[in-house]
């Protein structure tokens, strides 16, 4: 029995009936990791001893009891390496757990590894990692997307049952789309950021990356909820998200934003997404044309705000207290310069410089303050749209997976691959990407659904319905 192929809910049934044991599941997954990780480089650290130890100590009863889960390597696990794929944190072991880590452990999950990412979650291809790029299981010449490319690749390659990623501008949804699996960015404030190493605090959100929509709902049940250690965490009534998976979508009002279906959108992607809209329409959903007029400004707005916050968030990596410190330095300033110069990769440096510039006196009003205003306009676009519709559907990414190295020298082109996902982070909204088909090169295409704040249930309802219609989830990458 290839247990590693299973979903959370399938394992749940087998485990609950006593047909299999957690050790067997873990063994199966560990063997699979050994088999494929050399090809995809999805893990930075495989937590074999940690996971075995968890099982030996006895797992708590819970919805994930006995299920191996991987987490992105910018999420803290007490005493385990948390590198953010950066040289500057290559040896960092936090003395604390992230809130989501605690929730996973309390739910009985077996944490089996830390996955690769673009350094400090900055990137759209998982090429910017100190530990080397991750490869797309559907075509190892291609990038898995980013920055949660490691999590996407290992879930897609069945090298874990499910994973957590983090999404600042599309970092869960775009790689989910490239790797043909399900990835969700919850409402900002629904999942605690405590213990997630910050990239851009006002945009970052942890979310589930799973093999199907049911697993996504199950994982969201575990990781979401109020945390007093995160002041942006919100108190809300958390429903059982699996209850939303009814297959029924009659009467749901679906908005199609004209701005997302224009120039630059790959034709095969457009066709696949349009097929999804037809499924919705023919099953009783109401299709409504809407407009999100400030979409054009989203990418520039995002890159100002995100880099500004990042420049400040990453200031703490200075070699004084932990992490990498330069070998030789002549004085304090020299130590700062060399530590940061040697410790950070090119993309991170580029963003720190952009952000520092955007915040500097004389440019603050022209860039940072203006971007804040644009952010408000983008939020208002969504508010207006959601007066008329329950969900908005779009492609997740304008293209399917690109070749590794293809956009590495053209950051602007790279930034545009998040063009459909970024506005959602600026608005703090929940959104999901599910696979909706394949292009002529057999690379997966992603379908994005966006809903109102804290309306993850409607989101999952639509996603579940479409997943059944698209019927591509059982197709496996050729590894």
């Amino acid at each position, binding site marked *: 029995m290839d247990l590693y192929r299973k979903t959370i809910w399938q394992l749940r049934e087998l485990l609950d009936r006593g047909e299999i044991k957690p050790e067997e599941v873990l063994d199966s997954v560990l063997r699979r990791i050994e088999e494929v990780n050399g090809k995809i480089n999805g893990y930075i650290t495989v937590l074999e001893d940690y996971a075995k130890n968890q099982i030996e100590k006895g797992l708590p009863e819970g919805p994930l009891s006995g299920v191996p889960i991987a987490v992105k390597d*910018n*999420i*803290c696990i007490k005493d385990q390496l*948390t590198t*953010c794929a950066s040289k500057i*944190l290559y040896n*960092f072991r*936090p*003395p*604390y757990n*992230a809130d989501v880590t605690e929730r996973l452990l309390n739910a009985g999950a077996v944490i089996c590894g830390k996955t690769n990412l673009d350094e400090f979650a900055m990137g759209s291809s998982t090429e910017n990692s100190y530990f080397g790029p991750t490869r797309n299981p559907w075509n190892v010449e291609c990038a898995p997307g980013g920055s949660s490319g490691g999590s996407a690749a290992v879930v897609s390659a069945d090298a874990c049952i499910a994973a957590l990623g983090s999404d600042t501008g599309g970092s869960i949804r775009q790689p989910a789309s490239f790797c043909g699996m399900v990835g969700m960015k919850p409402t900002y404030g629904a999942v605690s*950021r*405590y*213990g*997630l*190493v*910050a990239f*851009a*605090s*006002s945009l970052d959100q942890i979310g589930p990356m799973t093999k199907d929509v049911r697993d996504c709902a199950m994982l969201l049940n575990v990781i979401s909820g109020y945390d*007093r*250690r*995160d*002041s*942006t965490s919100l108190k809300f009534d958390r429903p059982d998200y699996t209850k939303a998976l009814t297959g029924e979508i009659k009467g749901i009002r679906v908005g199609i934003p004209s701005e997302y279906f224009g120039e630059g959108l790959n034709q095969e992607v457009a066709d696949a997404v349009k097929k999804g809209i037809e499924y919705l329409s023919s099953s009783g959903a109401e299709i409504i044309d809407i407009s999100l007029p400030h979409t054009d400004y989203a990418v520039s707005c995002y890159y100002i705000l995100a880099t*500004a*916050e990042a*420049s*400040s968030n990453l*200031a*703490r990596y*200075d070699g*004084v*207290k*932990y992490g990498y410190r330069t070998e030789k330095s002549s004085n*304090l300033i020299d130590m*700062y310069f060399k530590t940061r110069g040697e410790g950070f990769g090119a993309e991170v440096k580029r963003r720190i410089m952009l952000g*520092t510039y955007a*915040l*500097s*006196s004389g440019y*603050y009003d022209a860039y*940072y303050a203006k971007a804040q205003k644009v952010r408000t306009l983008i939020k208002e676009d969504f508010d207006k749209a959601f007066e008329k519709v329950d969900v908005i559907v779009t492609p997740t990414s304008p293209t399917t997976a690109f070749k590794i190295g293809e956009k590495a020298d053209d950051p602007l082109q790279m930034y545009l691959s998040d063009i459909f996902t970024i506005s959602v982070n600026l608005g703090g909204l929940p959104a999901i990407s599910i696979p909706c088909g394949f292009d002529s090169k057999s690379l997966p295409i992603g379908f994005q659904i966006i809903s109102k704040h804290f309306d993850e249930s409607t989101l999952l309802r639509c996603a579940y319905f479409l997943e059944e219609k698209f019927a591509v989830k059982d197709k496996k990458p050729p590894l």
Partner: protein
Amino acid sequence: MNYEAVIGLEVHAQLLTKSKIFCSCSTQFGSEPNTQTCPVCLGMPGVLPVANREVINMAIKTSLALNCKINNYGRFARKNYFYPDLPKNYQISQYEEPLSEHGYLEIDVNGKRKKIGIVRIHIEEDAGKNIHENVVDGSYVDLNRTGVPLMEIVSEPDINTPEEARAYLTQLKNILLYLEVCDCNMEEGSLRCDANISVRPVGQKEFGTKTEIKNMNSFSNLQKALEYEIERQVDILQDGGRIVQETRLWDPSSGTTASMRSKEEAHDYRYFPCPDLVPVVVDEEWIENIKKTLPELPDEKKQRFVSQYGIPEYDAGVITASKALADYYEKVAAIYNDAKKVSNWVMGELLRLLKEDEKEISDILITPENFASLLQLIDKGTISGKIAKTVFEEMYKNGKTPDEIVEEKGLEQVSDEGEIAGIIDRVLAENTKQVEQYLGGKEKVAGFFVGQVMKATSGKANPGLVNKILKEKLEAMKNK
């Protein structure tokens, strides 16, 4: 040409919360390095600050006492700069949206009352401390103090003399102590003061170029530093020079200020709203609830003392300058009904002894009850006023009751007329030369006899009786 100074003070007060501003670590002073830290105040990757409500309560309390307008919407900002004792390399502070603004505080200088405006009050986190002494292989960092809550109170440039600056800081300290929001210990750094200072010809409206002075860690240092800096600036201007805008450090040992950094080296702090913290929304209800907890403030208390106890304004001012002293005074006055006599003793003996020992009223061993019963012993004639001072000192040292001390030391006043008369006879007999002088018309000599009698009785003779009997005897000799 005559010059006048224009001074604005920035005061940092450490708030007396039990825990730090963004985590639950203790704020206690003087612990072993890095024993009062956690991932949050160490600024470790992934951890997040959560604002301590008590910090905001205390800052609101202060804002109300300083007549400030409280902003309903306050935001924390990040002030970015690299420094080894600043773990995140930014400080969480308030910038464009401080907690409160536009207040004032009143001072008395040379009998004149003056209003000093408050520009703003904001809250922020403290940094840690770099340790360079007794370290062999570099420098160490102690982060116990990082995240300790500070309140910054910025005055308008309404202060014109070093005396006014001192009065302002004294009055501010007094108010903070009354509010119990800061222990105002300048040596331990829980109250710190920087000054912006410029001079201009009297009558000129525009401000001169200012300098900022740091490191004045006592009231007298503040005054001396300002005096020095005013003179320095005036000298430069009189010699036709120009003042350089810069930060200067006060050096108490040399009594001078020296340049620390000039404006050209000033930082660009790249302030922006801290995305980890939600805005502080202070509604009317919150403010009203804190208003209810406001104690009587120094000025109010002083006026009440004048009207309730009938003591002079001067006395009331001295006694209410410290809340603890005022509380003590009131306890004594509640038992002993001559409030003026109490204030005389408090201002005279008590403050003298405390000052000599450099002690606080909180250290005192004399209970209000014992204080009152000492005064009653004088009234009853059990001891003289002079002996009472000796008894008071004894009470101050060991906390015993006055009765115990009087008995132990046999200090009870001699009021036996026969005994006193006998001693006087002896004194007169032993000092015939002085008796002759007296009889010859030099009546001042009487004081000498009194002194001798007192000496003979170790001061215990009832002075009224001594005077009366002596006079009788001397008159009798005269008429003989």
